């Protein structure tokens, strides 16, 4: 039934032969109370090493599901997801994840939480300690290494979660609405930091968000998903350079364009800047 509606596979970055992350015609459905619900329908996406891709869409468009599949938490789907040409079969330390809720272990200190991610790294203990300290420094929490998560503010806890995701130097950094639960001011501040940190780490980043401003601010490329079932509606390239101004005309125009794809009309007519 969706055959005619669904989007065609989109191959944007056809530069190198094997993309770092290759999502190849992925469909996924769930069974809810005996009924089959299609979450993702024929989604394809290639991401080159070092790119920052944002996936935006209304709730229920399957964007978090897509991240779970990339993580390897769920392997029951159609199509293939490949990392450097190899099919994803289970979670691995080559992928770091920041969840919307910080998901810190409340019984470990900030430092302990970051160190927990190094359990399977095989690094010697001294090196582990050094890495943990370095990551906490990077997210600006050196002085809070010994604090329990319950003693941290929401923004600080999320920084620890970012440090935990980065401590293994993952090839891929997956961000599942990482700033969604924070207040507006903290969110803006952490967006700046996220831009800095990802640039510093040079990992390939996939950000899932429903905040279009955030996507335009951080990403090189924005994939707009459409809900019921989740499918790619459009891909927008962001060519705004390294240091972005949230109120520059280019920024606002791009934002409105993405918003319009999502069905939000603006008074100002968006100029037709067709991407790619």
């Amino acid at each position, binding site marked *: 039934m969706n055959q005619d509606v669904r989007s065609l596979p989109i191959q944007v970055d056809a530069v190198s032969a094997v993309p770092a992350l290759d999502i190849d015609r992925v469909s996924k459905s769930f069974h809810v109370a005996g009924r089959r619900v299609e979450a993702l329908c024929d989604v394809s996406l290639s991401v080159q090493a070092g790119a920052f891709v944002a996936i935006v869409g209304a709730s229920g468009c399957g964007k978090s599901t897509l991240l779970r599949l990339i993580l390897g938490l769920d392997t029951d789907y159609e199509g293939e997801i490949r990392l450097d040409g190899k099919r994803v079969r289970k979670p*691995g330390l080559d992928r770091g*994840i920041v*969840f919307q809720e910080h998901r810190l272990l409340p*019984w470990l200190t900030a430092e302990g939480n970051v160190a*927990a991610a190094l*359990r399977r790294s095989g690094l010697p203990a001294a090196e582990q300690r050094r890495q943990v300290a370095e990551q906490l420094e990077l997210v600006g929490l050196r002085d809070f290494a010994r604090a329990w998560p*319950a003693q941290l503010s929401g923004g600080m806890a999320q920084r620890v979660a970012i440090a935990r995701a980065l401590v293994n130097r993952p090839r891929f950094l997956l961000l599942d609405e990482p700033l969604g639960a924070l207040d507006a001011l903290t969110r803006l501040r952490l967006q700046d930091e996220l831009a800095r940190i990802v640039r510093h780490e040079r990992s390939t980043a996939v950000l899932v968000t429903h905040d279009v401003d955030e996507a335009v601010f951080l990403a090189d490329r924005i994939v707009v998903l459409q809900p019921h079932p989740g499918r790619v509606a459009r891909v927008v390239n962001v060519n705004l350079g390294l240091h972005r101004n949230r109120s520059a005309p280019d920024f606002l125009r791009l934002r409105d364009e993405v918003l319009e794809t999502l069905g939000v009309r603006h008074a100002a007519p968006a100029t037709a800047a067709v991407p790619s």
Partner: protein
Amino acid sequence: MSGITNVQSRGRPAAWQRLPPALRSGVLGVVTPLALLGLWQAACAAHVAPPHILPSPAAVAERFQMELTGGTFWLDLSASLSRMLEGFVLGSVSGLAFGLLLGLSQLGERLCGPVFLAYRQVALFAWVPLLSMWFGGGEAGKVAFVALSSFAPTVVNTWRATRAIPAPLRELAAVLTFGRLDYIRLIALPGALPGIVIGLRSALIYAWLATVGAELFLDIAPGIGGRLNEGRDKFEVDLMLVALAVLAVIGLAFSQLAAFGERRLLRWSPR
């Protein structure tokens, strides 16, 4: 400042209001015990009941002092406590192990869960005659009963708590590629700790209950419960009141100790 004058104008004595609230409730807290004591003394003075039924507060205090200095009090106390501790350690350690088996292994739960649930239906004291026949009415039987009493609450709470580790944390373990042991050590055990602590607390209460029960029901031996029986046999109400007071104080001490241990173990918890 205006708030203070406001309160004072309500007609209560200013000095009383100026005391810290904790002190105020402390003072009020001893009002009732003192009143009860006064009532008791008055009842004795008025000969409401013969002294062997209702001994005076002074008589009970005297008895207590006698027990402390000349009697077997310390022997009884240490007998009861060591009996209880032995049983509690046996029961809670095995309960912890069994609860973890049920909570962490699906197969273990399916195999042993139903049997345990069936066992738990039987009232605790129904095991007294069985245990006394299997282990004898002496020390072994008593300790076995105390162990049995602390076993079930530990198992139930450990089982439930390890089963209830939230899915997001299980997912985190998968993302961090934790093995089975890492999962148990870093997530399952600390995550279940609040539940396990509740289990151990209630096991401690049951162990104390069972210690007294074993001393009342099984062979005569030194112990606080034994003194209660002695008091009944010899019709010495003063001795029984002393024993009951000791039971109350020890129960209180245990619950304070448990609360302290809980705070230490769960320092990370926001509550």
